């Protein structure tokens, strides 16, 4: 099997990406030889999501006149893991932890995440207190065994766990990220005593310092593992029944893909896989448009997400929170130490509800009308005005051509909802109130994205906005202007970007090992041996997934900081630096990186917190071609509100699939596609490029 050579001129070698979302399952099929891209949307089947997947794949093959044997790779992303955590619908899980520490999971960080709210709820732990067991064992902070677990006590523990009738067990001991001996001993004994029960240790899942976050991560992994592996087993067997490839690939939250056999061991690494696909797609589109620095802006029905792509790579982090209980507030969710694309999410989507707050000002979200009942204009019983209602009133959306005309919208319903909830209480006209919704939601997103960039040490003005998601292109230009960004890219297929992004992602796996040491005392012999061991394991994983050994590459990173600082900076360490055991170079690489991020350096000692090793196959080269349709591009005109013009102006409406490459169109203009509408404001120009992307240049 040759997965990663798109130039191979085999007869047929389709690559298929499948993304399961809340409402739709998106399927994208690429013929790497021609660059031809087709897509399909089918309804998600929540009871057994594999049904929707197979249905979508079958349909796209039929549409493309292809057979299942001509499919080379299927890459899959899913919200299954995140949903199981949000809805607490995972396996009944027990925690085995160090004596004296079973409440770590419940106590958390002891921080009120909303400082003016007396009524905040703390997240409910995935494992209730009565299923948290203690073992009298102890590791020192240096990783030496202080007390080994007593075998007799472990047998009693196994009996207790059996009596509790759980499906999964997470084992997390203090300082196990340095030495997992005690975790391993306990796992072996429990595995023997409790056949058929999923058991994972914190060292296997993510060996990072910080007992609360590591416990939370290991517990979450155990909690989702049984349902996830059942799902994958079912899907793989169905795929082989349909003569599809038996190797299924899964999208990880950090933008890599892995073979399904690896994925079922670390399901928690899939927690953000759909949005990660969106970010990978944005990186590809950015590259095609020759823009290496992208702010990917993904606005859907209930939320908006943003992430940064610098020099073609999405920025990553290993601090993530899932299932936030309060208004997307940092600190109100379950922390996960997993490599993820660094993304913010705010409650501002098309379905977000606008209301008048206590100050008599317009606020949007985070409450959402979701897809049911949906915005007032859907006519499905929603009565609250939403962002989509405002977009309709302002002429950005068209009542007749929404979703390609499949869903007629009621402008009257929008007007009534906005009048009642906003215009009348505020003494505004309906249009002024609609404009208020549009302005307000854009400003909140602009602020959130600007601060997100600052938090990662970047300036948002140095990035180009790339808009995906159904509502992304409707809001992107206004958002960009608010952030001081001058250029916006609207790619083709914005509505199925995640599934497309899966196809763009290399097979890769990342390992992290904590090794806290002052740089002055670094034992690079030991580090090098550790890195080589991880590299070996990584190569084993990616070659088993079909990557040719000579195509596998390794990148080594160190998380470093000035001693005593609270934040780490990731530094890429070239192989040659380790080979030369060049400690001084490790330090100067950090200092250079620090200076690039913060514009200053300190006269202090430095330390390494952990090492990471990522082994990857080659990045698939994707060059989708624009499937242009002949015929006149302009469909007509309609009245659209632009504040720059002081009100409604008659604005030309184009079919984006009919606009010819390189043809410059001055704003104001609208470009309609099935899933979205691109707004080009006055004093801006839009140019479609050879790949079908619409590039909007905003004037001063």
């Amino acid at each position, binding site marked *: 099997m040759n997965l990663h050579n798109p130039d191979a001129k085999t007869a047929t070698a389709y690559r298929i990406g499948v993304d399961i979302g809340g409402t739709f399952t998106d399927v994208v099929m690429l013929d790497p030889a021609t660059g031809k891209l087709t897509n399909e949307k089918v309804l998600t089947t929540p009871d057994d999501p594999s049904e929707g997947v197979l249905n979508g794949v079958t349909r796209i093959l039929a549409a493309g006149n292809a057979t299942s044997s001509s499919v080379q790779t299927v890459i899959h992303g899913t919200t299954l893991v995140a949903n199981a955590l949000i809805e607490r619908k995972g396996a009944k899980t027990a925690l085995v932890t160090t*004596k*004296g*520490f*079973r*409440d*770590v999971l419940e*106590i*958390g*960080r*002891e*921080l*009120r995440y909303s400082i*003016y709210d*007396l*009524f905040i*709820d*703390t997240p409910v732990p995935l494992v*209730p*207190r*009565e299923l948290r067991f203690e073992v009298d064992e102890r590791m*020192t902070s240096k990783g030496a065994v*202080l007390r080994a677990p007593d075998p007799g006590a472990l047998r009693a523990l196994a009996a207790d766990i059996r009596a509790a009738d759980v499906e999964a067990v997470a084992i997390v001991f*203090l300082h196990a990220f340095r030495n997992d001996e005690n975790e391993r001993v306990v796992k072996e004994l429990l595995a023997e005593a409790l056949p058929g029960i999923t058991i994972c240790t914190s060292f296997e899942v993510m060996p990072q*310092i*910080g*007992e*609360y976050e590591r416990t939370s991560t290991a517990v979450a992994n155990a909690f989702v593992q049984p349902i996830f592996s059942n799902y994958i087993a079912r899907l793989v067997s169905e795929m082989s029944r349909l003569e599809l490839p038996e190797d299924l690939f899964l999208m990880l939250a950090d933008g890599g893909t892995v073979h399904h056999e690896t994925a079922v061991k670390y399901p928690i690494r899939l927690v953000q896989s759909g949005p990660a696909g969106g970010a990978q797609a944005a990186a590809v589109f950015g590259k095609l448009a020759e823009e290496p620095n992208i702010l990917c802006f993904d606005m859907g029905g209930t939320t908006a997400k943003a992430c940064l792509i610098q020099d073609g790579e999405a920025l990553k982090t290993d601090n993530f929170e899932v299932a936030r209980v309060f208004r997307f507030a940092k600190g109100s969710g379950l922390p996960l130490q997993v490599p993820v694309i660094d993304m913010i999410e705010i409650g501002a989507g098309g379905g977000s509800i606008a209301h008048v*707050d*206590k*100050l*008599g*000002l*317009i*606020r949007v979200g985070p409450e959402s009308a979701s897809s049911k009942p949906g915005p007032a204009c859907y006519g499905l019983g929603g009565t609250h005005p939403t962002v989509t209602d405002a977009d309709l009133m302002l002429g950005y959306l068209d009542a007749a051509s929404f979703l390609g005309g499949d869903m007629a919208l009621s402008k009257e319903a929008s007007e009534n909802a906005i009048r009642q909830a906003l215009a009348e209480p*505020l003494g*505004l*006209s309906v*249009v*002024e*109130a609609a*404009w*208020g919704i549009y*302005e*307000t939601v854009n*400003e*909140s997103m*602009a*602020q959130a994205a*600007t*601060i997100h960039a*600052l*938090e990662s*040490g970047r300036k948002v003005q140095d990035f180009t906005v790339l808009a995906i998601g159904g509502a992304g292109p409707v809001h992107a230009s206004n958002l960009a202007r608010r952030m001081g960004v001058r250029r916006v890219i609207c790619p083709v297929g914005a509505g199925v970007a995640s599934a497309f992004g899966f196809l763009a992602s290399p097979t890769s796996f990342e390992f992290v090992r904590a090794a806290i040491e002052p740089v002055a005392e670094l034992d690079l012999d030991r580090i090098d041996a550790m890195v080589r061991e991880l590299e070996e394991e990584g190569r084993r994983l990616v070659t088993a997934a079909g990557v040719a050994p000579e195509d596998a590459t390794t990148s080594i990173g160190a998380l470093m900081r000035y001693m005593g*600082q609270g934040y780490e900076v990731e530094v890429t360490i070239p192989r040659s630096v380790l080979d030369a055991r060049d400690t001084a170079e490790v330090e100067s690489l950090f200092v250079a990186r620090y200076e690039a991020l*913060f*514009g200053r350096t*300190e006269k202090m000692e430095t330390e390494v917190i952990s090492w990471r090793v990522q082994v990857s196959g080659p990045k698939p080269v994707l060059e989708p071609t624009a499937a242009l349709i002949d015929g006149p591009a302009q469909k007509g005109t309609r009245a659209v509100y632009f504040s720059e013009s*002081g*009100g*409604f102006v008659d604005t030309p409406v184009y079919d984006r699939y009919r606009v010819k490459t390189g043809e410059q169109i001055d704003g104001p203009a609208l470009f309609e596609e099935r899933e979205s509408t691109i707004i080009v404001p006055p004093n801006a120009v839009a140019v479609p490029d050879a790949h079908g992307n619409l590039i909007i240049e905003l004037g001063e």
Partner: protein
Amino acid sequence: MTEQPPVKLSPVKVGVVWERLSGLMDQVGETCVRTSFSSVVRENYDFAIGLLDKRGRQIAQSRRSVPSFIGTMSRTLTAMLEKFPIETLNDGDVMITNDGWLGTGHLNDITMIKPLFRDGRLIGFIGSIFHTVDIGGAPSPAAKDCYEEGLNIPISKILIAGEENPLLVDILQANLREPEETLGDIRSGFAAYHACAARLFRLLDDEDLPDLEAFADDVLNRSEASLRRAIEAIPDGTYCDTLTADGFDHPLDIRVSVTIKGSDIAVDFAGTTDQIEHPVNSPLTFTQAYSCYAIKCALDPGTPINDGAFRPITVTAPEGCLVNPRRPAPVWGRHLSGHYMPPAIYGALSQVAPDKVIADCGSPLWNVYFKGRRDGEDRPFVKMFFMNGGHGARPTQDGPGCLSFPSNVSNQAIEQFENQVPMLVEEKTLVPDTGGAGAFRGGNAQRLTFRNLGDAPITVTIRHERVANPPRGLLGGEAGAGGIDMINGDRIPSKSQNSIAKGDTVTFQTPGGGGMGPPGDRTADAIRTDIASGLVTPAFAKERYGYEP
């Protein structure tokens, strides 16, 4: 169909400008955090950024700031302008002070404010407050007056027309132990103001505003009106409460009367114990900040923090008392009194607004200073460790365990802590039966035990409250369990300095939160869940709730 664009200062415009200004404060705050030297600033957000208009009214404040800084900036600016009248200020000036009585209540917070000029015209002020660990002197829990507590920077100019004031920088350098850290944080403020001014001017241009006045008038009035509506909903009258703090040589009474009259609320602390010669006195500015914070949380959370939001509130206290001490009272640990403002005010308000308030929390914040020496090292280590008590019960919810109000300081990972000091933490666990019984029970306390692993003894310094006087319940709810301090299992005084030898243990059990409503009103379901989790024992359930399975 043609429509006029929204007129100037429509609610739409005010809303967008408000969002932009708040975002701007947070952006400037984030820049400061990223470049700060002090870990207190970075990790606990122990700083604030504020924007004031040319009349000195605070318009906006960074959203993650700690409560101690709420509303203090306008008062500090008023004092600054008395010394440096507006007509004497120049572009590029930055004023500074850390005076406890003019700023935030102790010397460790430095307030700096810069006038913003545009085309030669004053349009407002940008200011910041940040916490600095080192302010010189010998701040100690034994301090008898504020002179021991460090260097007082009188109101002065740290930047004069863009140039650093060499005399002041020399004085700072000569009086601080780590002058580079404190000066570094001061200078990072200058850079932040500069960036803020540029963005503010762009905002004014974009929104077509000549200055901040029209916007400030509008948004301050809205904030004021919002709080006034909430106050009006409470029946007029004077409501009193007295709360007793453990104190040092004798208990300390904090007496509060809260008077509601129409849409005004007046908080007065007459009857409170006199100031004492221990560093827990709370200057009026700190008392005001925590009183305003308490009122805002209870009556009007979620609206902006600006001068308008404080207009309906008056906070007074007799001069010379614990919460309005005269100089030179020692004030370094002012939070040990200041954190009692919210529970006292809520005790009073519970008589008329029981659905707005919470029972007492296991607060003031507990901490411990460990001082010792690692084997083979000469330099001593000093390590502070924070521990939260249980949260007070709420009108319709139990209090969470190990979460404190009004303080808000997160814990440190045990794995990090053990890396830094030669100690082993033997337990960090919730303690059953520590949450006060009630229809809704208080949050559980936690217990931590530390063992000295090293050869050198470790000094353990504590100043713990809520030991003799545990967190009270409200409206029939019972008190939480009082805190406990022990060495090798024997009780030690809650305000003491002790030494533990190799192998000795020291144990801290924080106070549990108070309950709310009569215990008899607690549902059997809730009690069963408590027993199943082990957070309440069957014996306690029987004794306090009369529950038998």
